Protein backbone atom coordinates (compact mmCIF):
# COMPACT_ATOMS: atom_id res chain seq x y z
CA UNK A 1 0.00 0.00 0.00
CA UNK A 2 1.60 3.22 -1.19
CA UNK A 3 -0.02 6.35 0.23
CA UNK A 4 0.88 9.81 -1.01
CA UNK A 5 0.08 12.80 1.20
CA UNK A 6 0.08 16.35 -0.16
CA UNK A 7 1.86 18.65 2.26
CA UNK A 8 1.76 22.37 1.70
CA UNK A 9 4.57 24.39 3.27
CA UNK A 10 3.46 27.85 4.30
CA UNK A 11 4.68 30.89 6.25
CA UNK A 12 3.90 30.58 9.96
CA UNK A 13 0.24 31.71 10.32
CA UNK A 14 1.09 33.03 13.80
CA UNK A 15 3.05 35.78 12.02
CA UNK A 16 1.10 36.05 8.78
CA UNK A 17 2.83 37.77 5.92
CA UNK A 18 1.33 40.61 3.99
CA UNK A 19 0.51 41.04 0.35
CA UNK A 20 3.44 42.56 -1.45
CA UNK A 21 2.07 45.94 -2.57
CA UNK A 22 3.72 45.82 -5.99
CA UNK A 23 3.43 42.18 -7.04
CA UNK A 24 0.20 41.62 -5.05
CA UNK A 25 1.34 38.12 -4.17
CA UNK A 26 1.76 36.78 -0.65
CA UNK A 27 5.20 37.39 0.76
CA UNK A 28 6.71 33.92 1.18
CA UNK A 29 10.28 34.97 1.84
CA UNK A 30 10.37 33.74 5.44
CA UNK A 31 10.89 30.20 6.68
CA UNK A 32 8.12 27.76 5.79
CA UNK A 33 6.41 25.25 8.05
CA UNK A 34 3.98 22.39 7.41
CA UNK A 35 0.42 23.66 7.02
CA UNK A 36 -1.42 22.45 10.10
CA UNK A 37 -4.31 21.39 7.84
CA UNK A 38 -2.06 18.73 6.31
CA UNK A 39 -0.97 17.24 9.63
CA UNK A 40 -4.30 15.35 9.77
CA UNK A 41 -3.70 13.77 6.36
CA UNK A 42 -0.18 12.76 7.39
CA UNK A 43 -1.52 11.19 10.59
CA UNK A 44 -4.32 9.30 8.79
CA UNK A 45 -1.87 8.18 6.09
CA UNK A 46 0.50 6.78 8.69
CA UNK A 47 -2.32 5.00 10.50
CA UNK A 48 -3.61 3.46 7.26
CA UNK A 49 -0.11 2.32 6.28
CA UNK A 50 0.39 0.81 9.74
CA UNK A 51 -3.00 -0.93 9.59
CA UNK A 52 -2.20 -2.29 6.11
CA UNK A 53 1.07 -3.70 7.47
CA UNK A 54 4.14 -2.58 5.56
CA UNK A 55 2.60 0.37 3.77
CA UNK A 56 4.63 3.43 2.92
CA UNK A 57 3.78 7.14 3.13
CA UNK A 58 5.31 9.46 0.53
CA UNK A 59 4.95 13.24 0.81
CA UNK A 60 4.35 15.46 -2.20
CA UNK A 61 4.85 19.21 -2.04
CA UNK A 62 5.35 22.23 -4.23
CA UNK A 63 7.26 25.08 -2.59
CA UNK A 64 9.75 27.81 -3.46
CA UNK A 65 13.51 27.70 -2.86
CA UNK A 66 13.61 23.92 -2.32
CA UNK A 67 12.12 24.51 1.15
CA UNK A 68 11.97 21.35 3.22
CA UNK A 69 11.20 22.75 6.70
CA UNK A 70 7.59 21.53 6.65
CA UNK A 71 8.44 18.25 4.97
CA UNK A 72 10.96 17.42 7.71
CA UNK A 73 8.18 17.70 10.29
CA UNK A 74 6.04 15.18 8.39
CA UNK A 75 9.06 12.92 7.83
CA UNK A 76 9.74 13.09 11.56
CA UNK A 77 6.15 11.95 12.18
CA UNK A 78 6.97 8.82 10.18
CA UNK A 79 6.64 9.39 6.42
CA UNK A 80 9.27 7.50 4.44
CA UNK A 81 10.32 10.02 1.81
CA UNK A 82 9.24 13.15 -0.03
CA UNK A 83 8.97 14.52 -3.54
CA UNK A 84 9.34 18.29 -3.71
CA UNK A 85 8.76 20.38 -6.81
CA UNK A 86 10.54 23.70 -6.72
CA UNK A 87 11.16 26.06 -9.60
CA UNK A 88 11.43 29.86 -9.86
CA UNK A 89 8.89 29.77 -12.71
CA UNK A 90 6.24 28.53 -10.26
CA UNK A 91 6.02 31.82 -8.38
CA UNK A 92 2.52 33.29 -8.69
CA UNK A 93 0.88 29.94 -9.47
CA UNK A 94 -2.88 29.76 -9.13
CA UNK A 95 -4.74 26.69 -7.86
CA UNK A 96 -4.98 25.09 -11.31
CA UNK A 97 -1.24 25.48 -11.96
CA UNK A 98 -0.48 24.06 -8.53
CA UNK A 99 -2.75 21.11 -9.27
CA UNK A 100 -0.99 20.46 -12.59
CA UNK A 101 2.38 20.37 -10.85
CA UNK A 102 1.19 18.14 -8.00
CA UNK A 103 -0.54 15.82 -10.49
CA UNK A 104 2.68 15.47 -12.51
CA UNK A 105 4.64 14.66 -9.35
CA UNK A 106 1.97 12.19 -8.17
CA UNK A 107 2.01 10.46 -11.54
CA UNK A 108 5.64 9.59 -10.84
CA UNK A 109 4.86 8.35 -7.34
CA UNK A 110 2.01 6.11 -8.53
CA UNK A 111 0.25 5.86 -5.15
CA UNK A 112 -2.79 3.70 -4.40
CA UNK A 113 -4.28 6.46 -2.29
CA UNK A 114 -3.64 10.21 -2.37
CA UNK A 115 -4.52 12.29 0.71
CA UNK A 116 -4.78 16.07 0.91
CA UNK A 117 -6.43 18.56 3.24
CA UNK A 118 -9.91 19.90 2.56
CA UNK A 119 -8.41 23.35 2.31
CA UNK A 120 -5.10 25.01 2.97
CA UNK A 121 -4.58 27.60 5.70
CA UNK A 122 -3.18 30.36 3.52
CA UNK A 123 -4.88 29.81 0.15
CA UNK A 124 -8.07 28.01 1.23
CA UNK A 125 -9.42 27.67 -2.28
CA UNK A 126 -10.30 24.06 -1.49
CA UNK A 127 -10.09 23.25 -5.17
CA UNK A 128 -6.53 21.95 -5.61
CA UNK A 129 -7.24 18.34 -4.56
CA UNK A 130 -10.29 17.79 -6.81
CA UNK A 131 -8.37 19.43 -9.66
CA UNK A 132 -5.52 16.98 -9.04
CA UNK A 133 -7.99 14.09 -9.09
CA UNK A 134 -9.53 15.23 -12.38
CA UNK A 135 -6.06 15.66 -13.94
CA UNK A 136 -5.13 12.13 -12.87
CA UNK A 137 -8.51 10.68 -13.87
CA UNK A 138 -9.11 9.55 -10.28
CA UNK A 139 -12.32 9.40 -8.27
CA UNK A 140 -12.26 11.58 -5.17
CA UNK A 141 -14.01 11.90 -1.83
CA UNK A 142 -13.76 15.28 -0.14
CA UNK A 143 -14.48 16.29 3.50
CA UNK A 144 -13.49 12.97 5.09
CA UNK A 145 -13.82 12.61 8.84
CA UNK A 146 -12.61 9.02 8.84
CA UNK A 147 -10.94 6.71 6.32
CA UNK A 148 -10.58 2.92 6.26
CA UNK A 149 -9.19 0.54 3.66
CA UNK A 150 -11.24 -2.54 2.82
CA UNK A 151 -9.62 -4.66 0.14
CA UNK A 152 -9.61 -2.77 -3.15
CA UNK A 153 -11.79 0.03 -1.76
CA UNK A 154 -11.48 3.02 0.52
CA UNK A 155 -14.40 3.62 2.88
CA UNK A 156 -14.88 7.22 3.93
CA UNK A 157 -17.20 9.01 6.32
CA UNK A 158 -17.85 12.23 4.41
CA UNK A 159 -19.17 15.27 6.27
CA UNK A 160 -22.50 16.61 5.06
CA UNK A 161 -24.86 19.41 6.04
CA UNK A 162 -27.00 16.92 7.96
CA UNK A 163 -24.37 14.58 9.42
CA UNK A 164 -22.21 12.29 7.31
CA UNK A 165 -22.42 9.89 4.36
CA UNK A 166 -20.57 6.62 4.15
CA UNK A 167 -18.85 6.61 0.77
CA UNK A 168 -17.07 3.68 -0.89
CA UNK A 169 -14.61 4.20 -3.68
CA UNK A 170 -12.30 1.85 -5.59
CA UNK A 171 -8.55 2.51 -5.45
CA UNK A 172 -6.62 4.34 -6.72
CA UNK A 173 -8.44 7.38 -5.35
CA UNK A 174 -7.93 10.79 -3.77
CA UNK A 175 -9.43 11.70 -0.39
CA UNK A 176 -9.40 15.07 1.38
CA UNK A 177 -9.30 15.19 5.16
CA UNK A 178 -11.14 17.77 7.28
CA UNK A 179 -9.10 19.56 9.95
CA UNK A 180 -9.45 18.32 13.52
CA UNK A 181 -10.64 14.77 12.81
CA UNK A 182 -7.63 13.06 14.47
CA UNK A 183 -4.88 14.04 16.87
CA UNK A 184 -1.69 14.24 14.82
CA UNK A 185 1.21 12.57 16.63
CA UNK A 186 4.14 14.64 17.86
CA UNK A 187 7.43 13.70 16.25
CA UNK A 188 9.62 11.78 18.71
CA UNK A 189 13.26 12.71 19.22
CA UNK A 190 14.19 9.54 17.33
CA UNK A 191 11.82 10.53 14.53
CA UNK A 192 13.35 13.99 14.28
CA UNK A 193 16.84 12.54 14.03
CA UNK A 194 15.75 9.94 11.46
CA UNK A 195 13.99 12.59 9.35
CA UNK A 196 17.30 14.34 8.69
CA UNK A 197 18.49 11.47 6.51
CA UNK A 198 15.23 10.53 4.80
CA UNK A 199 15.30 11.13 1.03
CA UNK A 200 13.75 14.28 -0.44
CA UNK A 201 13.65 14.15 -4.22
CA UNK A 202 13.74 17.74 -5.52
CA UNK A 203 12.33 18.17 -9.02
CA UNK A 204 12.23 21.13 -11.40
CA UNK A 205 9.53 21.85 -13.94
CA UNK A 206 11.80 20.46 -16.65
CA UNK A 207 12.14 17.22 -14.68
CA UNK A 208 8.36 16.91 -14.78
CA UNK A 209 8.20 17.82 -18.46
CA UNK A 210 6.12 20.93 -17.74
CA UNK A 211 6.83 24.29 -19.36
CA UNK A 212 6.25 27.75 -17.83
CA UNK A 213 3.56 28.34 -20.47
CA UNK A 214 1.25 25.79 -18.79
CA UNK A 215 1.94 26.48 -15.11
CA UNK A 216 3.15 29.26 -12.81
CA UNK A 217 2.55 32.98 -12.75
CA UNK A 218 3.00 33.38 -16.50
CA UNK A 219 0.07 31.01 -17.13
CA UNK A 220 -2.23 32.37 -14.41
CA UNK A 221 -5.56 33.43 -15.88
CA UNK A 222 -6.62 35.71 -13.07
CA UNK A 223 -5.33 38.93 -11.54
CA UNK A 224 -5.80 40.93 -8.38
CA UNK A 225 -6.94 44.41 -9.24
CA UNK A 226 -7.18 45.99 -5.80
CA UNK A 227 -6.64 45.37 -2.10
CA UNK A 228 -8.25 47.74 0.35
CA UNK A 229 -9.24 47.88 3.99
CA UNK A 230 -12.71 46.55 4.76
CA UNK A 231 -15.28 48.79 6.38
CA UNK A 232 -14.74 48.45 10.09
CA UNK A 233 -17.64 47.51 12.31
CA UNK A 234 -17.76 49.61 15.42
CA UNK A 235 -18.22 48.06 18.82
CA UNK A 236 -21.00 49.18 21.17
CA UNK A 237 -21.55 49.04 24.86
CA UNK A 238 -19.47 46.75 27.08
CA UNK A 239 -20.77 46.08 30.58
CA UNK A 240 -19.21 44.11 33.42
CA UNK A 241 -21.57 41.53 34.88
CA UNK A 242 -22.69 42.35 38.41
CA UNK A 243 -25.18 39.51 38.53
CA UNK A 244 -27.81 41.31 36.47
CA UNK A 245 -26.21 41.55 33.04
CA UNK A 246 -28.60 38.87 31.79
CA UNK A 247 -31.40 41.43 32.16
CA UNK A 248 -29.57 43.75 29.81
CA UNK A 249 -29.28 40.95 27.29
CA UNK A 250 -33.03 40.30 27.57
CA UNK A 251 -33.73 44.01 27.05
CA UNK A 252 -31.43 44.06 24.05
CA UNK A 253 -33.21 41.06 22.51
CA UNK A 254 -36.56 42.79 23.08
CA UNK A 255 -35.31 45.99 21.51
CA UNK A 256 -34.23 44.22 18.32
CA UNK A 257 -37.54 42.31 18.39
CA UNK A 258 -36.34 38.73 18.36
CA UNK A 259 -38.33 38.04 21.53
Amino acid sequence: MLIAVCVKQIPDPASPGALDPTTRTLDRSGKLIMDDSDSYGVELGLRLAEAAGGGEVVLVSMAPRSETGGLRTALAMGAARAVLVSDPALSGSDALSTAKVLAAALRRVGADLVLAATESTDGYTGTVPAQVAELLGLPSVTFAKSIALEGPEVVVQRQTEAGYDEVRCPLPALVTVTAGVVDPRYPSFKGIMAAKSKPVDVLSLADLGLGPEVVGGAAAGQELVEVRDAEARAGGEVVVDDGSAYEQIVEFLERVKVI
Partner: protein
Amino acid sequence: MAVDRILVLVERGPAGPVSASLELLSAARGLAARVDGAAWGADVSSLAGTVGAYGAATLFDLGDPGDALPGPQVAAALAGLATGPDAPDAILVPTTYDGRDIAARLSVRLDRPVLTNVVGLELVDGTLTTSHAIFGGAQVARARFTGAGPGIFVVRAKSFPAEEVGGDPAAVVTVGPADVGTTGAARVVSRHVEERSGPSLDEAAVVVSGGRGLGQPESYQLVEELARLLHGAPGASRAIVDAGWVPYAYQVGQTGKTVKPTVYLAVGISGATQHLVGMKGAKNIVAINKDQEAPIFSIADLGVVGDVHKIVPQLIEALKQRA
Protein backbone atom coordinates in the same frame (compact mmCIF):
# COMPACT_ATOMS: atom_id res chain seq x y z
CA MET B 1 -15.81 41.22 -22.42
CA ALA B 2 -19.47 42.03 -22.08
CA VAL B 3 -21.54 39.71 -19.95
CA ASP B 4 -24.58 38.40 -21.81
CA ARG B 5 -25.21 35.04 -20.24
CA ILE B 6 -24.59 33.64 -16.80
CA LEU B 7 -25.11 30.01 -15.87
CA VAL B 8 -25.86 29.25 -12.21
CA LEU B 9 -25.32 25.83 -10.68
CA VAL B 10 -28.49 24.97 -8.78
CA GLU B 11 -28.00 22.50 -5.97
CA ARG B 12 -30.94 20.75 -4.41
CA GLY B 13 -31.49 20.69 -0.66
CA PRO B 14 -34.18 18.89 1.34
CA ALA B 15 -36.75 21.53 0.33
CA GLY B 16 -35.95 22.53 -3.27
CA PRO B 17 -32.96 24.56 -4.45
CA VAL B 18 -30.54 25.55 -1.67
CA SER B 19 -30.71 29.22 -0.75
CA ALA B 20 -27.12 29.79 -1.89
CA SER B 21 -28.19 28.91 -5.43
CA LEU B 22 -31.22 31.22 -5.27
CA GLU B 23 -28.91 34.02 -4.10
CA LEU B 24 -26.73 33.43 -7.16
CA LEU B 25 -29.69 33.45 -9.55
CA SER B 26 -30.74 36.79 -8.03
CA ALA B 27 -27.25 38.26 -8.29
CA ALA B 28 -26.84 37.05 -11.86
CA ARG B 29 -30.02 38.85 -12.93
CA GLY B 30 -28.40 42.15 -12.10
CA LEU B 31 -25.28 41.33 -14.11
CA ALA B 32 -26.42 39.63 -17.33
CA ALA B 33 -29.21 39.87 -19.85
CA ARG B 34 -29.86 36.16 -19.67
CA VAL B 35 -29.61 33.82 -16.71
CA ASP B 36 -29.87 30.04 -16.90
CA GLY B 37 -29.71 27.36 -14.24
CA ALA B 38 -28.25 23.87 -14.30
CA ALA B 39 -29.09 21.08 -11.86
CA TRP B 40 -28.55 17.37 -11.37
CA GLY B 41 -30.31 14.49 -9.71
CA ALA B 42 -33.68 12.76 -10.07
CA ASP B 43 -36.58 14.79 -11.43
CA VAL B 44 -34.77 18.04 -12.14
CA SER B 45 -37.90 19.40 -13.80
CA SER B 46 -39.54 19.69 -10.37
CA LEU B 47 -37.15 22.61 -9.72
CA ALA B 48 -38.18 24.51 -12.88
CA GLY B 49 -40.89 26.53 -11.14
CA THR B 50 -38.65 27.90 -8.39
CA VAL B 51 -35.69 28.46 -10.68
CA GLY B 52 -37.93 30.34 -13.10
CA ALA B 53 -39.39 32.43 -10.29
CA TYR B 54 -35.85 33.55 -9.47
CA GLY B 55 -35.32 34.67 -13.06
CA ALA B 56 -33.76 31.78 -15.00
CA ALA B 57 -34.95 31.24 -18.57
CA THR B 58 -33.67 27.69 -18.99
CA LEU B 59 -32.91 24.92 -16.53
CA PHE B 60 -30.38 22.43 -17.88
CA ASP B 61 -30.79 18.88 -16.59
CA LEU B 62 -27.26 17.56 -16.13
CA GLY B 63 -28.37 13.99 -15.47
CA ASP B 64 -28.74 11.86 -12.38
CA PRO B 65 -25.53 10.47 -10.90
CA GLY B 66 -27.65 8.31 -8.58
CA ASP B 67 -25.62 7.30 -5.52
CA ALA B 68 -22.33 8.48 -7.04
CA LEU B 69 -20.74 11.65 -5.67
CA PRO B 70 -21.76 14.15 -8.35
CA GLY B 71 -18.47 16.01 -9.00
CA PRO B 72 -17.07 14.20 -12.05
CA GLN B 73 -20.33 13.65 -13.94
CA VAL B 74 -21.80 17.06 -13.28
CA ALA B 75 -18.54 18.76 -14.24
CA ALA B 76 -18.42 16.79 -17.50
CA ALA B 77 -22.00 17.71 -18.39
CA LEU B 78 -21.36 21.37 -17.51
CA ALA B 79 -18.21 21.40 -19.63
CA GLY B 80 -20.37 20.44 -22.58
CA LEU B 81 -22.51 23.55 -21.97
CA ALA B 82 -19.54 25.82 -21.49
CA THR B 83 -18.18 25.65 -25.01
CA GLY B 84 -19.68 26.62 -28.35
CA PRO B 85 -21.60 29.69 -29.49
CA ASP B 86 -24.16 29.53 -26.67
CA ALA B 87 -21.50 29.28 -23.98
CA PRO B 88 -22.14 31.42 -20.90
CA ASP B 89 -19.71 34.20 -20.01
CA ALA B 90 -19.63 33.10 -16.41
CA ILE B 91 -20.56 30.05 -14.35
CA LEU B 92 -21.56 30.72 -10.75
CA VAL B 93 -21.22 27.88 -8.27
CA PRO B 94 -22.33 28.01 -4.62
CA THR B 95 -19.68 27.17 -1.99
CA THR B 96 -21.11 23.84 -0.86
CA TYR B 97 -19.57 20.42 -0.28
CA ASP B 98 -20.39 19.30 -3.83
CA GLY B 99 -20.14 22.73 -5.47
CA ARG B 100 -16.42 23.02 -4.84
CA ASP B 101 -15.77 19.52 -6.25
CA ILE B 102 -17.77 20.35 -9.36
CA ALA B 103 -16.06 23.71 -9.93
CA ALA B 104 -12.61 22.17 -9.46
CA ARG B 105 -13.21 19.39 -11.95
CA LEU B 106 -14.87 21.78 -14.40
CA SER B 107 -11.81 24.01 -14.18
CA VAL B 108 -9.60 21.14 -15.38
CA ARG B 109 -12.00 20.18 -18.15
CA LEU B 110 -12.06 23.75 -19.46
CA ASP B 111 -8.43 24.43 -18.54
CA ARG B 112 -9.60 27.63 -16.88
CA PRO B 113 -8.83 28.85 -13.34
CA VAL B 114 -11.44 29.32 -10.63
CA LEU B 115 -12.03 32.29 -8.36
CA THR B 116 -13.10 30.91 -4.97
CA ASN B 117 -14.42 32.42 -1.72
CA VAL B 118 -16.13 35.16 -3.70
CA VAL B 119 -18.27 37.45 -1.52
CA GLY B 120 -19.12 40.14 -4.09
CA LEU B 121 -19.50 40.41 -7.86
CA GLU B 122 -19.87 43.51 -9.95
CA LEU B 123 -19.29 44.73 -13.48
CA VAL B 124 -16.32 47.04 -13.86
CA ASP B 125 -15.86 48.30 -17.43
CA GLY B 126 -17.82 45.31 -18.67
CA THR B 127 -15.70 42.78 -16.77
CA LEU B 128 -16.97 40.71 -13.85
CA THR B 129 -14.92 41.71 -10.85
CA THR B 130 -15.00 39.76 -7.59
CA SER B 131 -14.53 40.70 -3.95
CA HIS B 132 -12.87 38.40 -1.44
CA ALA B 133 -12.51 38.89 2.31
CA ILE B 134 -8.85 38.38 3.19
CA PHE B 135 -6.92 38.49 6.45
CA GLY B 136 -10.04 37.57 8.35
CA GLY B 137 -12.12 40.21 6.65
CA ALA B 138 -9.84 43.06 7.64
CA GLN B 139 -9.16 43.67 3.95
CA VAL B 140 -11.03 43.19 0.72
CA ALA B 141 -9.23 41.93 -2.38
CA ARG B 142 -10.80 42.40 -5.82
CA ALA B 143 -9.93 40.16 -8.74
CA ARG B 144 -10.91 39.26 -12.28
CA PHE B 145 -10.14 36.74 -14.97
CA THR B 146 -7.77 37.72 -17.74
CA GLY B 147 -8.12 35.06 -20.43
CA ALA B 148 -11.07 33.88 -22.54
CA GLY B 149 -14.32 32.89 -20.80
CA PRO B 150 -16.22 31.41 -19.25
CA GLY B 151 -15.03 32.40 -15.80
CA ILE B 152 -15.79 29.96 -12.98
CA PHE B 153 -16.78 31.68 -9.72
CA VAL B 154 -17.33 29.83 -6.45
CA VAL B 155 -19.39 32.14 -4.28
CA ARG B 156 -19.93 31.95 -0.53
CA ALA B 157 -23.48 31.72 0.81
CA LYS B 158 -25.07 34.95 2.10
CA SER B 159 -23.08 37.13 -0.26
CA PHE B 160 -26.26 38.33 -1.97
CA PRO B 161 -29.94 38.50 -1.04
CA ALA B 162 -32.25 35.98 -2.70
CA GLU B 163 -35.11 37.80 -4.43
CA GLU B 164 -37.97 36.23 -6.32
CA VAL B 165 -39.13 38.00 -9.46
CA GLY B 166 -42.00 35.69 -10.29
CA GLY B 167 -40.93 34.58 -13.77
CA ASP B 168 -42.45 31.64 -15.65
CA PRO B 169 -41.11 28.17 -14.95
CA ALA B 170 -37.75 27.67 -16.63
CA ALA B 171 -37.70 25.57 -19.78
CA VAL B 172 -36.03 22.25 -19.01
CA VAL B 173 -33.34 21.11 -21.45
CA THR B 174 -31.67 17.75 -20.92
CA VAL B 175 -27.92 17.62 -21.51
CA GLY B 176 -26.69 14.82 -19.24
CA PRO B 177 -25.75 12.35 -18.10
CA ALA B 178 -22.09 12.25 -19.01
CA ASP B 179 -20.15 8.99 -18.85
CA VAL B 180 -16.94 9.50 -16.89
CA GLY B 181 -15.95 5.88 -16.25
CA THR B 182 -14.13 5.03 -13.01
CA THR B 183 -13.49 8.71 -12.24
CA GLY B 184 -17.10 8.81 -11.08
CA ALA B 185 -16.86 5.60 -9.04
CA ALA B 186 -17.14 7.07 -5.51
CA ARG B 187 -20.63 6.24 -4.28
CA VAL B 188 -22.68 6.86 -1.17
CA VAL B 189 -23.70 3.62 0.49
CA SER B 190 -25.52 5.08 3.49
CA ARG B 191 -26.54 8.46 4.86
CA HIS B 192 -26.40 9.38 8.53
CA VAL B 193 -28.55 12.27 9.63
CA GLU B 194 -27.90 13.84 13.01
CA GLU B 195 -31.15 14.87 14.60
CA ARG B 196 -31.49 18.63 14.75
CA SER B 197 -34.62 20.60 15.39
CA GLY B 198 -35.26 24.28 14.71
CA PRO B 199 -34.05 26.44 11.85
CA SER B 200 -30.78 25.84 10.01
CA LEU B 201 -27.71 27.97 10.70
CA ASP B 202 -28.11 29.59 7.28
CA GLU B 203 -31.68 30.68 7.81
CA ALA B 204 -32.05 31.33 11.53
CA ALA B 205 -32.87 34.87 12.69
CA VAL B 206 -30.92 34.15 15.86
CA VAL B 207 -27.65 32.24 16.03
CA VAL B 208 -26.13 31.28 19.39
CA SER B 209 -22.54 30.08 19.01
CA GLY B 210 -20.36 28.53 21.67
CA GLY B 211 -16.59 28.49 21.96
CA ARG B 212 -13.81 27.10 24.09
CA GLY B 213 -14.90 29.37 26.94
CA LEU B 214 -17.64 26.83 27.66
CA GLY B 215 -14.91 24.76 29.28
CA GLN B 216 -16.23 21.28 28.59
CA PRO B 217 -18.36 19.57 25.93
CA GLU B 218 -21.34 19.09 28.27
CA SER B 219 -21.70 22.87 28.60
CA TYR B 220 -22.60 23.10 24.93
CA GLN B 221 -26.11 22.11 26.09
CA LEU B 222 -26.41 25.66 27.42
CA VAL B 223 -25.90 26.97 23.89
CA GLU B 224 -28.43 24.53 22.45
CA GLU B 225 -31.01 25.37 25.09
CA LEU B 226 -30.55 29.12 24.60
CA ALA B 227 -30.83 28.71 20.82
CA ARG B 228 -34.00 26.67 21.24
CA LEU B 229 -35.63 29.28 23.51
CA LEU B 230 -34.80 32.00 20.97
CA HIS B 231 -36.06 29.88 18.04
CA GLY B 232 -32.54 30.10 16.69
CA ALA B 233 -29.78 27.77 15.58
CA PRO B 234 -26.71 26.69 17.54
CA GLY B 235 -23.27 27.34 16.03
CA ALA B 236 -19.67 26.97 17.10
CA SER B 237 -16.13 28.23 16.84
CA ARG B 238 -13.57 26.02 15.17
CA ALA B 239 -11.84 25.40 18.49
CA ILE B 240 -14.71 23.24 19.73
CA VAL B 241 -15.34 21.66 16.33
CA ASP B 242 -11.70 20.57 16.19
CA ALA B 243 -12.00 19.33 19.76
CA GLY B 244 -14.86 17.10 18.62
CA TRP B 245 -17.59 18.68 20.78
CA VAL B 246 -19.88 19.40 17.82
CA PRO B 247 -19.90 18.41 14.12
CA TYR B 248 -18.17 20.44 11.44
CA ALA B 249 -21.50 21.61 10.01
CA TYR B 250 -21.87 23.85 13.11
CA GLN B 251 -18.69 25.83 12.42
CA VAL B 252 -19.00 29.55 11.74
CA GLY B 253 -16.12 31.38 10.09
CA GLN B 254 -13.59 31.40 7.31
CA THR B 255 -13.53 27.63 6.93
CA GLY B 256 -17.10 27.19 8.08
CA LYS B 257 -20.36 28.97 7.42
CA THR B 258 -21.14 32.61 6.88
CA VAL B 259 -24.19 33.66 8.86
CA LYS B 260 -26.11 36.93 8.79
CA PRO B 261 -28.80 36.62 11.44
CA THR B 262 -30.68 39.45 13.14
CA VAL B 263 -28.83 38.59 16.35
CA TYR B 264 -25.60 36.65 16.82
CA LEU B 265 -24.81 35.65 20.37
CA ALA B 266 -21.18 34.65 20.94
CA VAL B 267 -20.75 32.62 24.11
CA GLY B 268 -17.17 32.10 25.29
CA ILE B 269 -15.68 32.95 21.90
CA SER B 270 -12.55 35.10 21.71
CA GLY B 271 -13.27 36.59 18.30
CA ALA B 272 -10.32 35.47 16.17
CA THR B 273 -10.36 37.10 12.73
CA GLN B 274 -11.18 33.73 11.11
CA HIS B 275 -14.30 33.53 13.26
CA LEU B 276 -15.31 37.16 12.79
CA VAL B 277 -15.28 36.89 9.01
CA GLY B 278 -18.16 34.41 9.23
CA MET B 279 -20.44 36.43 11.50
CA LYS B 280 -19.68 40.11 11.36
CA GLY B 281 -22.45 40.59 8.81
CA ALA B 282 -24.97 39.93 11.61
CA LYS B 283 -27.31 42.87 12.25
CA ASN B 284 -26.68 42.74 15.98
CA ILE B 285 -23.94 41.06 17.95
CA VAL B 286 -24.04 40.15 21.63
CA ALA B 287 -20.96 38.66 23.25
CA ILE B 288 -20.33 37.08 26.63
CA ASN B 289 -16.68 36.62 27.57
CA LYS B 290 -14.83 36.81 30.85
CA ASP B 291 -11.87 38.62 29.28
CA GLN B 292 -12.48 42.35 28.91
CA GLU B 293 -9.77 42.45 26.23
CA ALA B 294 -11.34 39.74 24.02
CA PRO B 295 -11.41 40.96 20.40
CA ILE B 296 -15.07 39.94 20.04
CA PHE B 297 -15.97 43.03 22.12
CA SER B 298 -14.57 45.33 19.46
CA ILE B 299 -17.48 44.42 17.17
CA ALA B 300 -20.21 43.58 19.70
CA ASP B 301 -23.22 45.89 20.02
CA LEU B 302 -23.66 44.59 23.53
CA GLY B 303 -20.67 43.05 25.27
CA VAL B 304 -20.93 41.42 28.68
CA VAL B 305 -17.78 40.76 30.65
CA GLY B 306 -18.54 37.76 32.80
CA ASP B 307 -18.71 34.02 33.25
CA VAL B 308 -20.83 32.10 30.73
CA HIS B 309 -21.62 29.49 33.39
CA LYS B 310 -23.33 32.16 35.49
CA ILE B 311 -24.91 34.36 32.83
CA VAL B 312 -26.25 31.81 30.36
CA PRO B 313 -28.26 29.82 32.96
CA GLN B 314 -29.72 33.13 34.24
CA LEU B 315 -30.63 34.10 30.70
CA ILE B 316 -32.22 30.72 30.05
CA GLU B 317 -34.25 31.03 33.26
CA ALA B 318 -35.40 34.54 32.36
CA LEU B 319 -36.49 33.44 28.88
CA LYS B 320 -38.36 30.47 30.31
CA GLN B 321 -40.23 32.84 32.67
CA ARG B 322 -41.43 34.86 29.72
CA ALA B 323 -42.56 31.84 27.70
